[in-house]
């Protein structure tokens, strides 16, 4: 069953793959969304959501651990039978594919708004598709290498926000629990889109070299994301006034706009364009999971043609739909709902099913 011996990934690659799949464009507007529902207590939502996600991911890995050499497709085949399994896995693959397009669309909208207002949407997607195709057509190991390299290359980015320290005001955060727990709990669903991405562990788990650390690795990756979000949200809350933050669309970018050097004005432009490296990690792993799964479903060894097809399809979709911010918002809301299902309902259901399935099997074999 081990067809992926050549593509094993190390623990660090695994951690950063999980982390990379989570951090996308969500972070740019997350502080505003949190501030809208829960005021400056919003940062607590991130911690609560982190705890929930840790549980969900652990559950995913607990069910995957029983079948360490099975990818999600093999698992579904095994659990639900050949045809029913394929039928069940299909929506999940669609979700992944949709997610990939949505992240690219979001990024495209940012790039279009900040850099290339007159360039057609599909041309920007075509631009994204070139490097993505080069990487996605290779094995998971190459994705992992790319993720690790770009993670370390872009490690300076969060520290860059510290330049805004002069205008921080701690009073913005106080008092804690201004309006009790209510708003804090209400804000939690807003973080779902930002946290989605942990579902890739279903796909990458069988490739991990040291499977005994799978849960540890996942927890580290998820915590890394949590710290990252928490840091960025706190900085935004400290920088903007509690009322002001709701009036800007992407607080992080507006914050960056205020950072200026004598030799370089508008560093945020360079920052945002380099942020492409960070976001690309996210869409690439989703697209990889999609095309890898579809090619496995059709019993193909090589997923290059599927990757090419995917990007062509994405370009075509963007060409036809011509997404705007509103459409992207709709997509994002839809994905948040779907994400809730994939992130929380699917692991619980799968875990319970496997428990039942095993018991049933044991009875049968006895």
């Amino acid at each position: 069953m081990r067809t992926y011996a050549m593509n094993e990934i190390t623990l660090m690659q695994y951690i950063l793959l999980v982390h990379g799949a989570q951090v996308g464009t969500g972070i740019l507007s997350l502080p505003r969304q949190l501030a809208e529902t829960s005021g400056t207590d919003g940062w607590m939502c991130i911690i609560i959501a982190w705890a929930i996600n840790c549980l969900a991911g652990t559950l995913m890995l607990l069910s995957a651990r029983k079948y360490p050499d099975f990818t999600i497709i093999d698992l579904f085949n095994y659990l639900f039978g050949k045809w029913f399994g394929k039928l069940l896995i299909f929506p999940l693959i669609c979700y992944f594919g949709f997610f990939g397009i949505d992240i690219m669309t979001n990024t495209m909208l940012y790039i279009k708004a900040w850099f290339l207002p007159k360039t057609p949407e599909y041309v920007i997607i075509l631009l994204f598709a070139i490097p993505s195709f080069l990487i996605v057509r290779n094995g998971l190991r190459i994705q992992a290498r790319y993720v690790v390299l770009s993670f370390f290359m872009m490690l300076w980015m969060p520290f860059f926000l510290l330049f805004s320290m002069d205008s921080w005001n701690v009073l913005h955060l106080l008092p804690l629990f201004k309006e009790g727990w209510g708003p804090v709990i209400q804000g939690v669903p807003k973080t779902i889109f930002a946290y989605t991405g942990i579902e890739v562990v279903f796909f990458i788990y069988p490739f991990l070299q040291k499977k005994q650390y799978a849960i540890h690795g996942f927890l580290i990756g998820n915590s890394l994301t949590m710290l990252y979000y928490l840091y960025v949200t706190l900085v935004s809350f400290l920088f903007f006034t509690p009322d002001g933050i709701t009036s800007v669309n992407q607080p992080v970018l507006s914050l960056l706009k205020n950072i200026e050097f004598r030799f370089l004005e508008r560093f945020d432009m360079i920052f945002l364009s380099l942020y492409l490296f960070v976001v690309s990690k996210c869409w690439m792993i989703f697209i990889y999971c999609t095309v890898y799964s579809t090619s496995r479903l059709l019993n193909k060894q090589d997923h290059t043609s599927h990757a090419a097809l995917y990007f062509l399809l994405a370009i075509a979709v963007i060409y036809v739909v011509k997404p705007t911010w509103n459409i992207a918002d709709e997509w994002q809301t839809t994905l948040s709902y779907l994400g809730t299902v994939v992130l929380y309902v699917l692991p619980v259901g799968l875990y319970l099913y496997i428990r039942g399935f095993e018991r049933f099997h044991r009875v049968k074999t006895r």
Partner: protein
Amino acid sequence: MRFFDKKSAATDQPHNQAEEDRPIHQALAQNIEEVKRSFPAAPDLTIFQFDTAPHGTPGALVFLDGLSDKNSLNSHILRPLMYGTQEVQKDISLPTISGCRILTTWSDVENAILQGESLLFLDGQQEVTAYDTKGWPQRGIEDPQLESSLKGGHQGFVETGMQNISLIRRYIPNLNLRISEQKIGRRGKTNVWILYLEDIAHPEVLQELETRLSKVDVDAVINTGELAEFIEDNPFSPFPQFIMTERPDSAASQLLAGRFVVIVDRSPSVIIAPATFTSFLQSVDDYSTRWLVTSFIRLLRFIALFIALLLPATYIAFISYNYEVIPIQLFLSVAESRARVPFPPLIEALMMEIMIEMMREAGIRLPAPVGQTIGIVGGIVVGQAAVQAGIVSNIMVIVVASTAIASFIFPSYDMGTAVRLLRFPMMLMASLFGIVGIVIGCMTLVGHLVALESLGTPYGSPLAPLRLVDMKDTFVRLPLWTMFRRPTSTRPIQKIRMRRERPRGDQR
């Protein structure tokens, strides 16, 4: 029985050569006729007939004139054969020469003559003695031009493979230095030697290299570069996938790092494999200079990499798309110098870059005394005059000059040219999409580098996959005694290369 004979002959030899497997004739005259028939229109073929001492058997010495060492031929073969020595073997007195073997078939005879050996035919004998008298015009050992070093040795490889092997053996007098030989090229029959250290180099990589070499089926391999192109992993990549060097010291140090050295006979440069991207930014001098200085120079090279790759593109992006990034003061002075220029930035940059590249290429062909003059003239034309004529802006000249200088910093010529070439697509992307175009270009490059392999080992190592141990010798070079492990990117089987003997703390 006949059937079996036929079959074995067919498997041993390619079809049309089966005839050349004939045995040698008994009579001398017949043999001489045969040789003459095999080498028609060969004025350099010499057949010297004489009576051998002490019994006076008629014999003939056959050799190619320019390919044999006349001195040893005359005094160490002909003299004993004609005037006799104490030692007599098989009816003739023994020549005082070490390399000597017996040939029995005509194909061997022809090959031996072509390789520069001299052959002794004796009347009444069905075998031929071949004496090793190979000797051909050779160049002296010189400092390699392309990769001169300040502190390293000043010996470079030459065109004779055996001498190159001995140059490396001088650095590594160790039994574990293994050499495996292969012949490549149907006509050229080039000797190719793979050198490696048995207890360091990874056997899988060796197997990969050997299979790739054995799959090469060409007429002849004239140069190392040709061979490299036949065996590299990705022929469409702009990056060199093997290090090619003319320096024995760098070849030896790469051997010690667990890499393989492929020596190609008749070519002064050797292939070093597997290579990584960062190894092209390292030079032998790095290890003989003090480590702080070297670290500084290493960092300079990495900065130069970015300048050579991105500076013209950045200029184009900043001038034509993202001018809000530059501070207003700088922008005013740029605008002032660009006011007279009628071309869009891309055309301006392309013009200058192509001009510089042409000057560089012309510099190679021009004879040394003329070269300098032309360089100065070209420099003035490209610089001052072009600005005054209003064809390009001052800033552009600065950009082009810095780029040119930066692209010559790389110790490896191949990597330098790769970077110079990649600059043009970057400029195009910048002129089409501004900064985003550059970032997409970089992403494509990173994606390509991450996926690229050299002999099946990752090319991006130690950056991708990340190997923290190798970081001691990547962007900076830490003192040698801290690098007690061999670089992991070559997958050596013996990982530790030295003992940490340096006293630490209170031990001093």
